[in-house]
Structures are given as structure tokens and as C-alpha cells.
């Protein structure tokens, strides 16, 4: 059963990535809890400010690539050496060197597909997923910061206005405990 959590939050909308960064710095200094941040493009430097961990998707890619490599090696070995060995003019029936191109190709193929599917899964991206949108222009030119309201909502609101937030409003930050994509309307 998927559990949906709604956290009361302050939504601050900025019109520039530098003012957003300033607001995040201020929030970090004052100890506000930043829930999420929505930007139209990957603003560099935010991951450090928000203390986001370096993604482990690289390990997933490597594991899938190894799987592809093993699939290719075992498939070709079984087919050429075990199941139906053919004598091509006395050449070896287990020609490892000839396997290299296909082992490489299948490593890349399985590695990329595996990594992209893992990425979609952990980001909750899938056809049919309804996005939770706090600010419709967050994919255009607005930078959105969500801060947990708690009992200090007024302080946060005033600080965000002082940090040149274009709009500050209250909204519920919606999360769910399912690790993958949830194809239901959350908002």
C-alpha cells in the first residue's frame, strides 16, 4: 500500500538562479529544512548547496554492463563451442578474440538500458505518471524552493521576500514511500 505524505511547505518562486542560490545559502545558515528545489535546467553548484549525494547510478551502469558482458560471453560460448561446434577450416570452436566486438556491444547495450531504466525508476519517471507541479513556470524560467513550514512559517516567508522571491505561498509538499514511479494523481 502506497502511503502519501503531505508536508505543509512554503513555496518561494525566484526569477533567477543566483537569487535562488542566495536564498538557499540563507536557509542553510538559518537552519531551515529545504524539501525540494525545482529548476528549468540543471543549475550547477546547487547540488553542493543542497548537500545532494553523488548519484550511485554509475555503479548500476557498471553492474548492468558486467551482466551484458557475461550474457554475450556465455551465449556465444554455448552456441559455438557447446551446442553446435562447427569446424570452419580447422579454426578453434571457441574463438575468444572474435567474441570481443559482440561482448563490447552487449556490455554497452545492457549497461545503458539498465542504467536508464534504473534512473527512470529512482526518479519515479514513467509514462502515465502525473507530475506534482508547484509552479507551472518551473520548466520555463522560474526557480522554485520548497521549505518545510513547521512553526516558523512567518520567518521563512519574510526571509524569502527579503531574498527577492517573486512569489511566496503555502502549499503541501507531496511525497510517497514507493521507491518507483506511481502512476496516480497525487495532487
Amino acid at each position, binding site marked *: 500500500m502506497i502511503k502519501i505524505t503531505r508536508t505543509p511547505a512554503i513555496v518561494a518562486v525566484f526569477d533567477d538562479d543566483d537569487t535562488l542560490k542566495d536564498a538557499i545559502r540563507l536557509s542553510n545558515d538559518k537552519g531551515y529544512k529545504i524539501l525540494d528545489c525545482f529548476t528549468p535546467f540543471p543549475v550547477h553548484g546547487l547540488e553542493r548547496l543542497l548537500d545532494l549525494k553523488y548519484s550511485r*547510478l554509475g555503479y548500476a551502469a557498471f553492474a548492468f554492463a558486467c551482466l551484458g558482458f557475461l550474457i554475450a560471453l556465455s551465449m556465444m560460448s554455448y552456441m559455438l563451442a557447446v551446442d553446435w561446434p562447427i569446424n570452419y577450416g580447422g579454426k578453434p570452436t571457441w574463438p575468444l578474440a572474435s567474441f570481443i566486438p559482440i561482448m563490447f556491444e552487449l556490455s554497452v547495450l545492457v549497461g*545503458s538500458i539498465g542504467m536508464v531504466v534504473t534512473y527512470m525508476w529512482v526518479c519515479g519517471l514513467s509514462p502515465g505518471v502525473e507530475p*506534482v507541479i508547484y509552479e507551472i513556470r518551473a520548466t520555463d524560467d522560474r526557480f522554485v524552493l520548497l521549505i518545510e513550514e513547521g512553526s516558523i512559517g512567518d520567518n521563512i516567508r519574510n526571509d524569502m521576500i527579503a531574498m527577492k522571491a517573486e512569489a511566496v505561498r503555502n502549499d503541501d509538499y507531496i511525497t510517497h514511500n514507493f521507491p518507483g514511479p506511481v502512476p496516480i494523481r497525487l495532487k
Partner: protein
Amino acid sequence: MHESPIREPLIVGNPSYTDITHDICVPTETRPSKYWLAGFAVSVLVMMYGFFCIGYTVTYGIGTWGVNKTIGWAWDITNFVWWIGIGHAGTLISAILLIFRQEWRNSINRSAEAMTIFAVLCAALFPIIHMGRPWNAFWVLPLPNDLGPLWPNFNSALLWDVFAISTYLTVSVLFWYTGLIPDLATLRDRSKSKLRKNIFSFFSFGWTGSMRHWNRFELVSLILAGVSTPLVLSVHTIVSFDFATSIIPGWHTTIFPPYFVAGAIFSGFAMVLTLMIIARKVMGLEKYITVAHLEAMAKIITLTGSMVGLAYATEFFMAWYGQNDYEGFAFINRAFGPYWWAYWSMITCNVVSPQFFWFGKLRRNINFIWCLTIFVNIGMWFERFVIIVTSLHRDFLPSSWAMYSPTWVEMGIYIGTFGLFFTLFLLFAKYLPVIAIAEVKLILKATLTSKPKEAIYGYQDQNYDIHKAYAITQAAKIAVTQNDDHSQNDDHHDDERNAATDDNANPEILGKPVL
């Protein structure tokens, strides 16, 4: 992110973030123009004619082609290698240039990747048709079957090709689509009609632009670039193995893999330029695909064209130095035999013509670039024709020497693939953002903030005086050091600079932008 002021701005006209969204999305949201409809109609007709010729071949057999027992491979394999090569520029732009942090790629990668996908589709048609019984094409796959099961021969370069090209197509589509998701979300949030919103909502997979997602997105792009780079080299290497692993004089050389890869990138960039020069004009994207972009691509054309020229010379040298009679004959015959015109067309188009780009004026002349890319496309087609047909047509046994000329069916199939390519490209250009919106926004500040405005001049700010920019920057630097105390007191100014250099691990060492 700091960028040197002596680099030309990659975006001109000083757009805001929303201007970028607007400029790129509007062409997809308006009704198709008359020119688009006309182009689309012609493309579809040409494509239909191509499919008719394919149907004719399949019905009556390969005998409808000009191939004979001596020249078993001709136009079809030439076209196959040519189209695969066209595709390689897309991967070079999206993957290799990403690894090298070449930011000018950001406004051309989307359309170049789309070209990759469409070109590979066109290329894949040819081996399938050449099988003669295309409905048995799945026999190349190692599927369990009731013939034993009998498996394909994994020692064959032709089978490696099957795996290489299908992997290449799949990974290119993955790379392209992963990058497309955020832009589809932009289109979704802009859409006014319910239907449009639902369609883009479905295809944007629920993207919101959360920093957590962007964080992973960047890593996924980087890793896909990392695996695509050796992949693209492997694909054309394996295509060249189709020839190099044989014992035909003229094919049996170890130089083939790097030579083919360089040639592929060469022709691919030419095709990207041919299409982008038209697309930027028709769709009004001159702000994002600037003359600086075209110039950078022209430089790559000169580089890869020279590599190809070097490869031609090396081949000739090795044919002489190896003192193998058959090899020597094959090369003399290429240049002075009955197909001399194909060989010298190739040399003129591929080796001579890109050298014009050593002149800065010509490199920045859009009409000249466009004409030259057409020559490169023709030249690279001739290169494959020369390699394939001239090596085959005079084989070891003079009694079986033959000549080859294509029939209308072969020409029809080739022309038909242009129809297929342009149909797909026109659909892409009309319904999807041709420029990666998010990636252009990413470089907007870096490319504009460090440029002195006085150095930008001319029609639509297309020109940038590097020398003037350098002089202004140097003067400003001296002014800053002289007024050091003064500028430190200026709090507001200092904040802005800190924000601008946020990415630098240590701004003190790397230096702050002066302007």
C-alpha cells in the same frame, strides 16, 4: 561558471530564460507553414517511390540491380556505409563533445542526435534489402530455431555489424530521449489545449525539474556519453571490418578503422551543417545556432577531412611500400583505371575542398559553408563507392573483370532513403524542440556575462571582435587591481561575483570574471 571573454558568445541577442523557451517552442506550437507542408509532401512522395523500388527488388530479385558476379556489392553497401557515417556526427556532438566540455554542442546536439537515429534507420534498410529475402532478416539473430538449432557465425564481421548497429540505434535513442524528457515537460507546461497537454504529459514521464532528478540526469548523460564514445568508434570500426577482414586488395588494410571513423565524422558534420544552416534560417534560431557554431563545425570538417586525406596518402604509400603486386594494381587502377572520375571526384571533394576553411572569411561565410558541405557529402559517397566498386571490379582473374553501373531501381532506393530521412527530420523539426532548451539555458549566463558588450556588433549581434574584447578586458583588469580597496568595499558587487563563480572549487585561484 567562468568563460574567457575572448571566446565568442554562443548565444547572441541577449535573450532571457523565457525568451529561449519561447523561441524554441513556438515553431512546434504553430500550424505548419506552406514550405513545411510542401517539403513534407515531396519527402513523403520520394519515400513512397523508394519503397516502391524496394518492393520491386523484393518481387523480382536482386537481378533488377546492376550488380553482377564480379561486383556483388555496389550501391547498396555504399549507401549503407554512407548513411551510417552521416549518423556519427550526432554521437560525436552529443557524446564526445560533452566529455570534452565543448559548450557549443548544447544548441546543436538535439537535432544532430535526431539525425543519427534517422540516418541509422536509413542505413539499416540496405543490408536487409540486400539479403534478397527480407522477411528472413531475423535469421541473423541468435534465436532458437528448428534447424538444429543452428546458430549464426559469431566469427563474421557481418554479424558483428548486426549487433553494433542495433546497439548503436538503441543507445542513440536512449540518449536522445533522456535529454528530451525535460524539454517535453516544458512543452507540456506551456500547452494550452487539453489534448496537447495529455500527449506531452504522457511522453514527458512526469518530469518536474526537481534538483534530485537533475542531479541524476547529469550523471546519466555523462555516463551515456562515456559509453557512446567508444560505441561510435566501435560501430564504424566494425563497418570497416566488413571490408578489412577480407583478402580483397584495396580492402585488406589495417588503416581502415581509424580512416572510416574519421570519414564518418567528416561526412556527418557536413550533413549536420547542411541541415542546420537551413533549419536555423527557416525556424529563426540564429540566436542559438550562431556563426560561431558553424565556424566550429567547419574547423572539425577541415580536421577530419585532412585526416581522411592523410589516410588516402597512407594507403597509396603502403601499396607501394608493401610491394604486393595485387595491392599496387588495385590502387593504380583506382586512380587511373576506368573509374578514375570517381576517384578524382572523391579527392577534389574530400581532400581539396575542406582546405578552403583555413581562411577565416570563408569559414564564416554561411553560403560558402553550405555549398562546401554538399561537396563533402558527395565526396564521401564517392569514397565508399571507390573503395567498394574499384576494388571489386578487377579481381584476381582478368577474365572475370567487369564494369558496374546502377539501374533505376538502385537509384530509386537510394533517393527513397532521402525521402525517409527528410520525412522523419521534418516531423521532428515540427513537433519536437530542435534545440535542447534546458542545455541552452544552462550556458546562457556563462556565455553572456563575461563578454564586453562593446565588442559585439553587426546584424543581429552576429559578430564579435575578439581583439577588442581582449583589450577591454585587459583594461578592466588593470582598473580592478588599481582600485582593489574600493571594489572590496562594494558589497553588492562582490556578492554578484561570488554567485557567478559559484561552481569553481576555489574562486581565488581560478580568478573571477572581470566584467
